């Protein structure tokens, strides 16, 4: 559960860091993109408007040119000449060589009768009097039709001019090649999605559009959206894509030249190149990875620091506890030792008196003596507890002596070896080769080792192994007493160093051994530490500072 705290923390830090680093970036990116997009769009609108205007001019010019040639031909030739023999064909040839785009040419008299004709269709002799354009051209003089089917049943449009020759009027009429005309319009079409065409007010296509429809069919485009000069608008087409439309009314006010293209295609110019995308993605990846990496590192450090802190705290609590207990024990010892001293003097006095001759005859004298001995034995027992508690067993002299740890361990093992053997317990020494002689207290260290190895023997009870290891590092000699006994339950591990904590039966354990050992090692500037696993055994580790003896 402890782990999840750190995992949570790690997740939070990563999320926040990423948010903090990306939010401004994204904001900036979006803003810049937006600004750019607006500018870009303005440019595109400008462009398409310009193209529409230019193209309309080109178309107007085209029509004006054709009309001018037709007018010139009508003005410079007489009706009679026109309808005679091959003359019309000759004129047609001249016109086409000058300007081109004429499909056919015809001469129509004032009654609508088609008097002469050059072209691919067989139209000579037809009467146009009832055709709508006939009236128009007769009254206006020049007429450009919209696309219609006519006699030939093919969509086309015509240019017709009227010639007033003395009393009679006649008409020179030419059909414009829809392919060529369409081609001129389509010259304005760009890109994969671009289109350019002409529609009239009634939305009839006057040229073949690239998409959606064909010449002479109905367009869906609402021509009323386009005003006086050139208008640019954005509309959604059938499949929901935005299209930019630019429309310019031609000079005749009947035809609308429309250029359009998908807005997205034009905007595509804004999108970065493949290489730039790769760089950006790599940059983002780098930020994410470093964030995760540094966060992991930080959290791990934090965790280590926490663990150290906890250990340190535990050690502090322990040594505080020990100091307080020590003071209390000293006070208690005084209060107990004084009464014990009195008891011992009183029993001594009684013995003294019983030794007198007059008591020798008394029948219960032996009983008395035995009772006194018992009292003294129990005083001794109490004395031992108190003295142990205070570590009296230790010599009180403050002088340090030269101590060979391996030697001390060997002696201690010798003391316990026989006892261990009778219980089938092996004590296996494993000593470091060259431990330095240190300035310390041999008796006291011996007592620590004795306590720990005795405890191990008690714990194993029968059949087992006790390893006694010595080693060193820069600052300490380290002694480990390892047994394969039952181990110490986790809830007891914090208590075993407390005075009077014992799990042994009364009379066998005092619960003072580990307390004294702790006290001794600490006073010698060392540490004692236990690690144990139930069912596997116990390791007591003692660190004794390497203090080099003063040279004598």
């Amino acid at each position, binding site marked *: 559960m402890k782990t999840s705290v750190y995992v949570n923390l790690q997740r939070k830090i990563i999320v926040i860091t990423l948010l903090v680093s990306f939010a401004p970036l994204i904001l900036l990116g979006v803003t810049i993109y937006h600004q750019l997009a607006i500018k870009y769009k303005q440019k595109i609108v400008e462009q398409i408007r310009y193209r529409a205007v230019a193209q309309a001019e080109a178309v107007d010019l085209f029509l004006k040119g054709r009309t001018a040639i037709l007018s010139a031909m009508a003005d410079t030739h007489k009706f009679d000449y026109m309808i005679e023999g091959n003359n019309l064909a000759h004129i047609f040839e001249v016109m086409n060589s000058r300007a081109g785009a004429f499909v056919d040419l015809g001469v129509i008299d004032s009654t609508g009768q088609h008097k002469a004709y050059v072209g691919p269709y067989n139209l000579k002799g037809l009467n146009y009097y009832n055709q709508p354009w006939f009236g128009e051209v007769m009254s206006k003089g020049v007429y450009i039709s919209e696309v219609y089917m006519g006699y030939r049943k093919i969509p086309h449009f015509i240019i017709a001019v009227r010639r007033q020759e003395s009393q009679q009027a006649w008409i020179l009429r030419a059909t414009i090649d829809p392919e060529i005309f369409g081609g001129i319009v389509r010259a304005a079409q760009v890109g994969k999605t671009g289109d350019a065409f002409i529609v009239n007010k009634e939305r009839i296509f006057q040229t073949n559009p690239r998409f959606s429809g064909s010449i002479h069919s109905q367009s869906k485009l609402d021509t009323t959206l386009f005003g006086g000069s050139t208008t640019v608008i954005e509309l959604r087409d059938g499949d929901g894509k935005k299209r930019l439309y630019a429309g310019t009314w031609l000079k005749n006010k009947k035809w609308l030249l429309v250029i359009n293209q998908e807005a997205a295609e034009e905007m595509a110019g804004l999108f970065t190149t493949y290489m730039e995308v790769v760089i950006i993605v790599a940059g983002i990846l780098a930020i994410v990875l470093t964030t995760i990496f540094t966060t992991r590192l930080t959290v791990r450090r934090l965790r280590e620091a926490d663990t150290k802190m906890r250990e340190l705290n535990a050690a502090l609590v322990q040594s505080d506890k020990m100091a307080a207990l020590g003071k209390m024990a000293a006070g208690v010892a005084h209060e107990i*030792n004084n009464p014990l001293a009195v008891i011992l003097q009183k029993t001594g006095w009684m013995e003294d008196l019983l030794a007198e001759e007059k008591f020798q005859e008394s029948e219960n004298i032996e009983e008395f003596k035995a009772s006194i001995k018992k009292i003294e034995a129990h005083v001794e027992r109490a004395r031992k507890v108190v003295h142990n508690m205070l570590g009296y067993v230790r010599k009180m002299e403050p002088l340090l002596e030269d101590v060979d740890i391996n030697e001390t361990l060997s002696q201690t093992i010798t003391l316990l070896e026989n006892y261990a053997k009778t219980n089938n317990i092996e004590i296996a020494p494993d000593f470091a080769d060259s431990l330095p002689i240190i300035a310390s207290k041999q008796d006291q260290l011996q007592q620590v080792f004795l306590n720990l190895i005795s405890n191990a023997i008690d714990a194993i009870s029968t059949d087992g192994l006790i390893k006694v290891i010595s080693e060193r590092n820069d600052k300490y000699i380290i002694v480990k007493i390892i047994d394969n006994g039952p181990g110490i339950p986790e809830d007891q591990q914090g208590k075993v160093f407390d005075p009077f904590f014992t799990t042994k039966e009364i009379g066998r354990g005092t619960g003072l051994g580990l307390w004294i050992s702790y006290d001794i090692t600490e006073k010698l500037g060392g540490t004692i530490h236990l690690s144990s696993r139930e069912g596997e055994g116990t390791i007591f580790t003692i660190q004794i500072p390497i203090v080099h003896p003063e040279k004598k």
Partner: protein
Amino acid sequence: MDTFSVLVVDDEKDFLETLVSRLKKRKIDTHGAKSGEDALKLIKNRPFDVVILDIKMPGGMDGIEALRAIKKIQPLTEVILLTGHASVETSIEGMKLGAFDYVLKPVKLEELLPKMLQAFEKKNNHDQKVRSAKIRETLKYW
């Protein structure tokens, strides 16, 4: 010089009286004092070979102060310190001030007596040395 005179100083009345009785029963010239002040009064009046002195006595003069005063009045008197709680520091201080030894309470007479005798012997030696020094000095001027 063969009579062995002892002064026991302890605030614990039962302890004091009993120990005094037992020593007297062993033909030792024993006196008791229940405080440091009482002990000093006695010592001013007459010399003792050995003083058994409790370190911790509540109120008034404590053992270490008493030891210092005794050594001033009777430098040759040997003092054995009794202590109910061995604080290393006070015991060492006592030894530095010239105490012969220290003994932890409770103590059996069988353990205390040998120490007293050792102290007595040391004092006797001292006395003898002082005496022979005096004799030599006297001889010089003869």
